[in-house]
């Protein structure tokens, strides 16, 4: 494995400071953790356990997110909100030759426990509990992390989104990718779900995080994926 990873530092040119005080987001993290712990206890390990319709749609999202990565050389990858580690299985099937140093991070101890059990003994696959991303890696991806707003006020949820993007940025060397539910064209909303327009977060990534951002849409779902690459990518 030659991909660089660093368990102690964050991206040196970017402050890991969060735009929202940890004290404010603490209860948000706690609610999210409780929500997904309940999901997996009711539905077990599988797409429904992390609120996806099915394995196929879950993996179609992975396809989009991984367009960020250069599979032509080894790399390290942080999977933020990894759940039970579905991405690990997908990587093994879709990119069996790729040399990937994977770290899955999730707020839910129950999820991480299931992930560790599911992928026990698989080389280059590790998991950690918490909202901190504990190492610098080449890339970070997050699938579905921003979608379930629960009953949090939208402004507070957008603070959570911004904070998560900052953490992904600070812990990535080359770029990060994240997906969002798209705003319905007629403006309708779904209770508890966060929907938005690409411009809301492309501008944040470009202006606040100084990234070059690509938007993937039209892949069969009412959502979009942002691919953020660093202008000073090594």
């Amino acid at each position, binding site marked *: 494995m030659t991909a660089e990873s660093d368990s102690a530092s964050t991206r040196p040119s970017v402050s890991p400071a969060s735009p929202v005080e940890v004290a404010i987001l603490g209860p948000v993290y706690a609610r999210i953790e409780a929500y997904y712990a309940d999901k997996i206890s009711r539905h077990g390990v*599988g*797409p*429904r356990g992390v609120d996806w*319709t*099915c*394995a*196929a*749609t879950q*993996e*179609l999202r992975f*396809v989009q997110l991984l367009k960020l990565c250069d599979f032509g050389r080894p790399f390290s990858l942080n999977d933020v909100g990894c759940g039970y580690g579905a991405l690990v299985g997908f990587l093994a099937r879709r990119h069996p030759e790729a040399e990937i140093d994977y770290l899955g991070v999730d707020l839910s101890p129950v999820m991480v426990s299931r992930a560790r059990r599911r992928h026990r003994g698989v080389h280059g696959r590790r998991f950690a509990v918490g909202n901190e991303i504990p190492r610098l890696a080449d890339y970070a991806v997050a699938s579905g992390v921003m979608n379930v707003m629960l009953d949090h006020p939208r402004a507070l949820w957008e603070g959570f989104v911004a904070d998560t993007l900052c953490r992904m940025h600070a812990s990535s060397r080359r770029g990060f990718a994240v997906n969002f539910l798209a705003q319905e064209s007629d403006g309708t909303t779904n209770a508890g779900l966060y929907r938005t327009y690409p411009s809301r977060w492309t501008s944040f990534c470009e202006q606040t995080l100084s990234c070059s951002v690509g938007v993937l849409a039209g*892949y*069969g*779902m*009412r959502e979009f994926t942002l691919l953020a690459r660093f202008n000073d990518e090594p």
Partner: protein
Amino acid sequence: MGGMVSDSATRDVIAQINARFEAGEAIEEMVALQREFKIFSPEHSLYDSWLLLNIKASDPRERGRWRRWVDYIRTVPSDLEGVNGHDRLVRAYQENLESPQPLPMHYTQHLAAEDPRVLVSTGRGPLFSVLNHVITSIPIRPVAVASEPAT
């Protein structure tokens, strides 16, 4: 179905299938999934393809019966000479989802006494829909008492 799978499980699974292939976002999603993963192809059993879409009997006790029913339709003829019912359904899904203008799909049933074959046609959709659909119809043999739900 009927003698093989309980009425409640049959209704449950058919509702799931029709929801995932209905007009609008659902069929667009299916087209994208087929393009990326070739979910419906002669290499995969219909049961496995549906399972990948999380289409299965909600009651775990019914799933074995559902699987046996999918195997059973391999023994049922279809409206294509030399193609069994299972393979006819797979072909209908694949051809429609990969066509330049895919249609929503509707899954229904007819009496085997009237036509013992699996039938695939194009026609008006269910209920209030005026859109053309690909309609797949499965022959059923009503029995005096449908299978009790598995225990």
